[in-house]
């Protein structure tokens, strides 16, 4: 099998890598914050939201915490939960909890937007997504669309504004592992496209372009490739600045089911 056009992104490493050890609140590095974000995204975001403000009365990005004075207090809460509240205990090592704290501390200062567009109108954005943007040819929003691209039903609930902007302006800048496109050619020449779900020494698990879950056996493939270039078009020049603002405001409003 052939693997082509692959290169290593240091930034992707920082995003995907899991921490082995961490710091203790001293000299936090950008890498620590990225690793904290990773944990936040997998464990906290569903309740607290991407901006840490989804629970009424709790604003993680404020840098102030009702029940915690110090980083150690925060670590205790992260590990042991808050009895009498919905905050569950979490099986985090001290190191992982410290990385989470590093990320929480960083939230208040992280940029909200990288562009200075006009104010957006979600209703117009919805129309653009469903028509001009042709987004539902690949994406799903609620009961509409398809499953070959990432599900956008809750995109505003799991991604920060700046991340959504980046996805529209430079789709290949960061392909998250859960959205990795795969392309394969069977020995008889048949082409197969889909999204990578899993892989091992002998097989690839994909959701193929017909919406079917299937294993591909490498022994039966002429070649295959995990794409580093997103199949999503770049919308920088497709949308006007106003349209871009509208679309972004609509996507940010999609909090879906959680």
């Amino acid at each position, binding site marked *: 099998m052939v693997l082509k056009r692959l290169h290593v992104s240091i930034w992707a490493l920082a995003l995907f890598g899991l921490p082995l050890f961490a710091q203790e609140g001293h000299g936090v590095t950008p890498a620590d914050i990225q690793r904290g974000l990773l944990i936040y995204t997998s464990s906290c975001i569903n309740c607290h939201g991407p901006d840490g403000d989804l629970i009424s009365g709790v604003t993680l990005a404020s840098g102030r915490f009702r029940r915690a004075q110090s980083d150690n207090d925060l670590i205790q809460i992260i590990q042991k939960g808050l009895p009498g509240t919905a905050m569950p205990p979490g099986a985090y090592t001290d190191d992982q909890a410290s990385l989470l704290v590093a990320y929480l501390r960083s939230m208040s200062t992280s940029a909200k937007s990288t562009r200075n567009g006009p104010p957006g109108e979600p209703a117009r954005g919805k129309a653009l997504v469903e028509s001009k943007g042709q987004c539902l*040819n*690949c994406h799903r929003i609620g009961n509409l669309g398809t499953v070959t691209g990432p599900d956008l039903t809750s995109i505003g609930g799991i991604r920060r504004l700046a991340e959504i902007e980046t996805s529209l302006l430079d789709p290949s800048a960061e392909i998250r592992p859960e959205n990795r496109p795969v392309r394969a050619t069977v020995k008889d020449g048949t082409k197969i496209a889909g999204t990578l779900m*899993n892989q*091992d020494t002998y097989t690839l698990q994909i959701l193929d*372009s*017909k919406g079917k879950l*299937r294993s591909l056996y490498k022994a039966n493939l002429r070649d295959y490739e995990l794409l580093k*270039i997103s199949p999503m078009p770049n919308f920088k020049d497709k949308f006007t600045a106003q349209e871009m603002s509208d679309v972004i405001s609509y996507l940010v409003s999609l909090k879906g089911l959680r």
Partner: protein
Amino acid sequence: MRRTILSLLALAATLAAQTPFDRLVNADKDPANWLTYSGTLDGQRYSRLTQVTPANAKDLELKWVLQTRAPAEPNSKYEATSLVSDGVLYTVQPPNVVVALDAVNGKIFWTYPYNPAPQARACCGRVNRGLAILGNTLFMGTLDGNLIALDARDGHVIWNTQVGRPEAGYSVTVAPLVVKDKVIVGPAGGEYGISGYLAAYSAETGKELWRFNTIPKPGEPGHETWENDAWKHGGGSIWTTGSYDPALNLLYWGIGNASPDWNGDVRPGDNLYTSSVLALDPDTGNLKWHFQFTPHDEFDFDATQVPVLADITWAGKPRKVMLFANRNGYFYVLDRQTGEFLLGKPFVKVTWANGLDAKGRPIRVGHSTPEGSLIYPENQGGTNWYNPAYSPRTGLFYIPSWLDTHSINTSRAEPYREGMPFNGGSATHEVPALRPGPTNKRLPELASGAIQALDPKTGAVKWQFKMMDVTDSGVLVTASDVVFAGGREGYFYALDARTGAPLWKAMVGGAVSAGPTTYAVDGKQYISIPAGNAIFTFGLR
């Protein structure tokens, strides 16, 4: 390159539904798949696959294992029956982690790790018994009282509906049943004094379409079987899947115990529809008939077994019957059109009743008492939710049994407090209700388990395969006359469906507490069983 990809992806716009309801109705003709909790809507767990036979079962070998990745919780058990649709196996690791994997090689496609809210109550283990599927949608009940619809292709949530309030003890552990365009479930919680119901939800939207109160409210028929306002917390839980007869358009469902479990004094009357089986119109939820196995239950004798629908010869004539081996120790045959009692016979030692009368009503001789009464069978029952199977080929009904166990049933006055156990007593018994300990040092006469084969025409035990420890395993039978089942000792067995002779066994090192499934991919038959914290899949060499 990009153009190619995009045009391929565009195909996705025209996706066909994976599993329409027709497939469920005709599941017997499609034995490569396992599309409902019981395999077919009649609850038979009878597979038409015949590749594995009594002659070659000894050649079964391990094909793959999938262990749970999430840490096991101390009181969780892996009770889910897997579904298989077109080569994809869907399972629920406890408590509510849905995993879609390749049924041939065990590799995961996706996981949906639902984490129940901390206020979820689980009287008897953090468990889930499995999924339902319709079209491209999976349905799962949750320990915190919700019913969730997931896209079967990627595990994304489509809708999430509350079935009952977890803080009041309502949880959903049953595998839902799809009938037409509806998803049927109800809440567990018989040990928390819930007031039960069976409900139908729109498969498309999650909207509730009807609700049948298993504890009739004032003005509803059956309410007269309750006194003292006891109906308010009367139990009647739902925690094992029902069955459906498309020809009669009748939905059958077994109903849980009365609350408080052991103290019947505070709820005089028969306490309908606890410990009963119901026949309902699935379009409306209207009751067609009911049969109560244990009126005024005092021993925690839920009737939450799968009603098995069979067409057999009865007194020389074909008859549509229901086979029901009950936790109370009796095996029943009912006419499933009318609910008429045809036969009732104990399949284990029974001391709480001195037989049944002509209508099938028990002649009660035992009661829970403040001092404690020794009652056979123990409160875990002669059998329990562990699914039975019926083979139209052998004409035998296969059940997992706890042979001749007993418990001391103690009643006690106890006030209802929302969300707290409301048992009105307790049962002391030899066998732990939840996970087995690492070793078994019990005296052999205090507990043993068996797979029993009953002749529905007489209730006679045709054969039994006895185990040293009890079993929480479901049973599967195939058209090649092989029975599959396991037990707490960690063995998973193939037995001869006609004789009970053991044909093959595997030591899987964890208790089998779920029903086996069998399916085929590319013409090869597989048998899959959860055990301990893992799922094991076998096939011929």
